[in-house]
């Protein structure tokens, strides 16, 4: 009598698990490895690389069309760390200075635009015009006007990262619950405290979504500047390598750039997670 319900209960417990878990039968070590965060991404990445290598080899694709991953890795190590360091540092320095400058200008500007409708009306169209002009087209002009050195590159990086920051910050500052603004006014608190204690913290999620967009744009800005005129930097390195038909080397530069962007993006995300954990979207 009792065996029937027991059987029913245990089977209903087991069945959905077997349906949803593809590695149910595997050893505990493999199971943990397969379900670790990022494993699916890594797995598909490895699959693509292996497929790429095989395709390039089987069909004997010339390396100037599509170098094999192994030749890219080989050229990566043949460049040497000191040379990599010079190029990475050159790009990173411009990207970081431009990004920092952008933040330092954009956030106060967004606050000013919030306080002054006049400024907002006059600056917004100007910002849209700047944003609508392709930075790649402006870059050579800026290089000519500002001459050699980091200055023109930093300006180019600034131009490309600036817009999302201003717009997002302005949106965030305005998105504060009106009740809290009324509370602030009913307390007759100083106006600057309304900004620092209410509006800016409420804008943090908006600012960070712009910071995440802008950090990758900063790398793009630095590379665009290097394409126009420079003697160092990963963008310069790629251009130099392609002009010499050293495609595996150019690909290696590309991978370094992608890795750089990715690491910088993760750093911004980490900063948000550790400094403003409440600003992240809720996970259920």
């Amino acid at each position, binding site marked *: 009598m009792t065996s029937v319900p027991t059987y029913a209960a245990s089977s209903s417990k087991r069945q959905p698990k077997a349906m949803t878990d593809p590695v149910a039968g595997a050893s505990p070590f493999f199971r943990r490895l397969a379900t670790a965060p990022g494993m699916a991404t890594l797995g598909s990445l490895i699959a693509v690389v292996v497929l790429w290598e095989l395709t390039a080899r089987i069909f004997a694709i010339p390396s100037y069309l599509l170098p094999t991953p192994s030749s890219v890795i080989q050229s990566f190590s043949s460049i040497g760390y000191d040379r990599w360091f010079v190029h990475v540092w050159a790009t990173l320095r411009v990207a970081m200075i431009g990004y920092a400058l952008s933040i330092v200008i954009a956030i106060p500007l967004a606050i000013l635009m919030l306080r002054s409708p006049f400024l907002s009306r006059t600056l917004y169209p100007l910002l849209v015009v700047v944003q609508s002009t392709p930075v790649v087209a402006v870059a050579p002009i800026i290089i000519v006007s500002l001459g050699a050195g980091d200055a023109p590159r930093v300006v180019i990086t600034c131009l490309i990262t600036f817009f999302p920051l201003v717009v997002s910050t302005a949106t965030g500052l305005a998105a504060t619950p009106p*009740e809290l603004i*009324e*509370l602030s006014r009913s*307390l*007759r608190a100083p106006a600057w405290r309304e900004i620092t204690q209410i509006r800016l913290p409420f804008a943090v999620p908006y600012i960070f979504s712009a910071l995440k967009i802008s950090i990758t744009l900063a790398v793009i800005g630095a590379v665009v500047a290097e394409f126009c005129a420079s003697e160092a930097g990963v963008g310069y390195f790629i251009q130099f390598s392609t002009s010499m038909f050293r495609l595996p080397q150019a690909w290696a530069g590309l991978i370094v750039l992608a890795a750089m962007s990715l690491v910088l993006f993760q750093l911004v995300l980490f900063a948000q997670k550790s400094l403003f954990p*409440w600003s992240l979207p*809720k996970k259920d």
Partner: protein
Amino acid sequence: MASPAIRFDTLGQVFDTRSGRTEALRDVSFEVARHEFVAILGPSGCGKSTLLRLIAGLLRPTSGSVEVFGLQVGEPRDDIGIVFQKPTLLPWATVEDNVVFPARHKRGRVSPEERERAAALLRMVGLEGFAKRLPDELSGGMQQRVGIARALLMDPDILLMDEPFSALDALTREVMGFDLLRIFAERPKTVVFITHSVSEAALLADRVLVMTGRPGSVLTDVVVPVGRPRGPETANEKAIHDLSAYLRSFLLQKAA
């Protein structure tokens, strides 16, 4: 004779909007005595919230006058606390920091006495032990309790409550009402309480003002014939039932 806590005198309020002029309030006159609990009942958009903003000094009347303790309201006063429809807490601040926020926001610092007061207020609203939690970890009702504690931090004489329980489920709403009765029994306040709920108004208030739709004006002013202290058992009293029925039929008649 002492002046009333709040006095509206032939007040009119007109807003200039993009679509033209909107008359929100017309010829509003009433008084609220000190430590009186007045509920304002009326359809949506009858300018009830505008009344509160006028008392709070967040809005200047177009015509007529608003007085608080005998003085024309010019700018926001220190002796008024506001509870909003939504709790609108700071999501990054703990419950305790949310309660002391008015002090920090007004003067930039929080005194130890205010910290103590906040702790006492949290006890009073039944949130002892939640001081270090973030608003997200609290239910809607608990968040609104934090909002009430925040409004009481400066120990205001007047508390303005703008449909404070309308976002809560029916049961929580009832419990909050009884808690409010207990809180004001301990610490009497002049309260202007805006609500859509007839029974809530009858149970909580000393007087109920019924307002008409736009432009809003006071249609009738009813004294609740039940003394204090009140509690859960008050809800079952015949006088409350009768008053609720009367107010309901009155509102329905006017709405038709």
